[in-house]
């Protein structure tokens, strides 16, 4: 009953005209950047972060989260019609989505992607409502050792699940931690790694770092490999899937939602992993796995449901524990801090308008997305026709404006360019930027909790073993590392000469 009352309160917050406006702007921008290959939700969110400084915290979070889940909807459009994933989480949708379009079934593919996403998002929001509160109540008893080890788990899981090598992922996480130490020491205000630069006293800003790593570097990479787009030209009809389509896709949507929800909660998980995992599971469950990749509707429904469920579920660890599970949530975490709100177990109690408002806005936002993505599909197809060579100067300008307007400092522009170059070379050398960004955000919290733990235990690391949650977390970390090493040795036995770092 209390939950229902809270939810009604949330809808009262969301349905205020100004918050509805922010929600609409968020999902509209999310769909746009989802449709456009070349800029992801992280880039778009960091771009809009400075613009939200003048907005209320609730409005800001409603808009920023709208971008994230909106991008999941938009990404499928590009995958189905152009065979280029608009987002990383829509890569697998290309496999069957584009084949369906080639067979003249672009309408049902787009339809099932949108309806499947909507159903998955609805289920995930229900899960969010019932899980976040008990989790945050439980987290009230957490001390520095619990937080320290949970954050370590998040970092290790992220590197474990990364597309490339775990070894390189761990190196990136350590590099991200080193960057996070730049600035004043949180314990005694002593400057660290600032090299006398006044601008570095407050540390490296999250906006120049993320914008450089994910925005500028992406543009630099795209400029050397122009994206070829062959847009599906026939008229799109029959957006509402047939009864048979629904029958075929219903199991895939439900399984995709479940997989997405649990992988979304997992630290280091998120929409990308969820879409890949759900496609693999669907193929395994299918009576005709050999048909996957030739245009089966389950191959579109499952990953699209999963990426949306994961996008909603990843809010759970952020809003209830104060631990961002992925880079997008890390950015939202930064946004909340800028607004003076500390994400954590007390957030639901201290800022019920924010928590319940955001939850309700997700539902409203998903309904808006359904309206935006189906009847207005023609508009998004036209957007797709904008050539990249005209688009990239605009994206660069938006990056500069976004970075400059945080502190009105040209130093931040230089930092963004520097991280853009670093990100470009990192991707060239197969280092992923995501562990770096997440470690950078978790760095200060991780350091504080580790130092506090050591002070509490008078220098004994046994504090991490004597408590149940840190012990389980440490065992999980060790287990993951052993699993990875074991998998390497197994591969090496089968493929002599396989290299250690490349596989681990």
């Amino acid at each position, binding site marked *: 009953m209390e939950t229902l009352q809270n939810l009604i309160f949330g809808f009262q917050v969301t349905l205020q005209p100004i918050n509805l406006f922010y929600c609409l702007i968020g999902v509209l921008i999310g769909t746009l950047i989802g449709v456009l290959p070349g800029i992801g939700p992280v880039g778009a969110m960091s771009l809009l972060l400075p613009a939200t400084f003048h907005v209320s915290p609730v409005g800001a979070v409603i808009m920023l989260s709208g971008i994230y889940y909106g991008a999941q909807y938009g990404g499928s459009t590009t995958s189905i019609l152009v065979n280029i994933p608009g987002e990383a989480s829509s890569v697998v949708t290309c496999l069957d989505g584009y084949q369906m379009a080639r067979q003249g079934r672009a309408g049902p593919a787009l339809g099932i992607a949108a309806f499947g996403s909507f159903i998955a998002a609805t289920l995930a929001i229900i899960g969010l409502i019932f899980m976040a509160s008990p989790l945050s109540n439980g987290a009230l008893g957490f001390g520095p050792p619990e937080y320290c080890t949970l954050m370590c788990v998040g970092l290790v899981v992220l590197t474990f699940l990364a597309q490339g090598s775990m070894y390189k992922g761990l190196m990136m996480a350590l590099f991200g931690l080193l960057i996070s130490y730049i600035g004043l020491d949180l314990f005694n205000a002593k400057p660290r*790694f600032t090299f006398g630069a006044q601008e570095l006293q407050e540390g490296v800003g999250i906006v120049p770092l993320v914008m450089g790593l994910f925005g500028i570097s992406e543009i630099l*990479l795209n400029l050397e490999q122009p994206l070829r787009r062959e847009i599906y030209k026939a008229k799109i009809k029959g957006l509402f899937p047939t009864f048979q389509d629904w029958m075929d896709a219903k199991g895939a949507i439900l399984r995709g939602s479940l997989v997405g929800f649990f992988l979304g909660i997992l630290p280091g998980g998120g929409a990308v992993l969820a879409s890949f995992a759900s496609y693999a599971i669907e193929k395994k469950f299918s009576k005709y796995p050999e048909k996957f990749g030739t245009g089966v509707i389950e191959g579109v429904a499952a990953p699209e449901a999963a990426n949306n469920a994961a996008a909603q579920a990843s809010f759970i660890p952020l809003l209830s524990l104060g631990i961002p599970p992925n880079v997008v949530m890390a950015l939202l975490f930064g946004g909340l801090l800028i607004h003076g709100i500390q994400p954590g177990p007390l957030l639901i109690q201290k800022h019920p308008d924010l928590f319940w408002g955001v939850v309700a806005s997700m539902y409203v936002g998903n309904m808006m997305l359904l309206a935006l993505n189906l009847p207005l599909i023609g508009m998004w197809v036209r957007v797709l026709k904008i050539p990249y060579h005209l688009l990239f100067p605009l994206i660069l*300008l938006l990056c*500069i404006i976004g970075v400059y307007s945080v502190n009105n400092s040209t130093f931040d522009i230089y930092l963004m360019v520097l991280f853009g170059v670093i990100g470009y070379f990192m991707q060239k050398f197969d280092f992923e930027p995501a562990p770096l960004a997440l470690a950078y955000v978790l760095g200060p919290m991780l350091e504080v909790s*580790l130092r506090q733990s050591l002070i509490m235990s008078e220098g004994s690391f046994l504090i991490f073993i004597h408590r149940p949650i840190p012990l389980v977390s440490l065992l999980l970390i060790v287990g993951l590392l052993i699993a990875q090493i074991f998998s390497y040795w197994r591969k090496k036995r089968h493929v002599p000469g396989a290299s250690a770092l490349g596989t681990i």
Partner: protein
Amino acid sequence: MAWMGKPFAGQMKNSDFFSGLFFSLVSMASCILAVQLGLGKIQKPGSGLIPFGTAALLSLMSIGMVFRSLLTAKKKEEPQKKVFQSTRWKTLTLVIGALTGYGVFLNFLGFTVITFLLMTFLLRVISKQPWWRTLVTSMLIVLGAYFIFVFWLDCPFPKGIVGI
């Protein structure tokens, strides 16, 4: 796109030697700086203790990567990927230079003038658009940006010598 360059992920390459070397240097320098900050005691960690631990771990991993790449190169076990095969160095340098130049001249020339110059440069030199399209598009972008960010959102951008 990030995931497009992944077919070679999971292979050990000569490039790992250079990236390992880079991270070794960065992490070792960080170790020295962390020691200078003061490590304190384990019971009461100083400002440099945690950064030192992080940098030391990164050093070990980077050195491991360098050694491993040397061993792999010796055995010539795997095909080497040419990391910068597709890199257009001229475009890369020009874009980075243009962005840096934007930062250098922003305060002096003002938001509108420097934005117009940047857009003109990118559209003409990088995108190779004809002059008329370059100038018209740049003008439209500047007007749009001015309307949204200066007029509507009230962002305090520098006006520079021109005063707009």
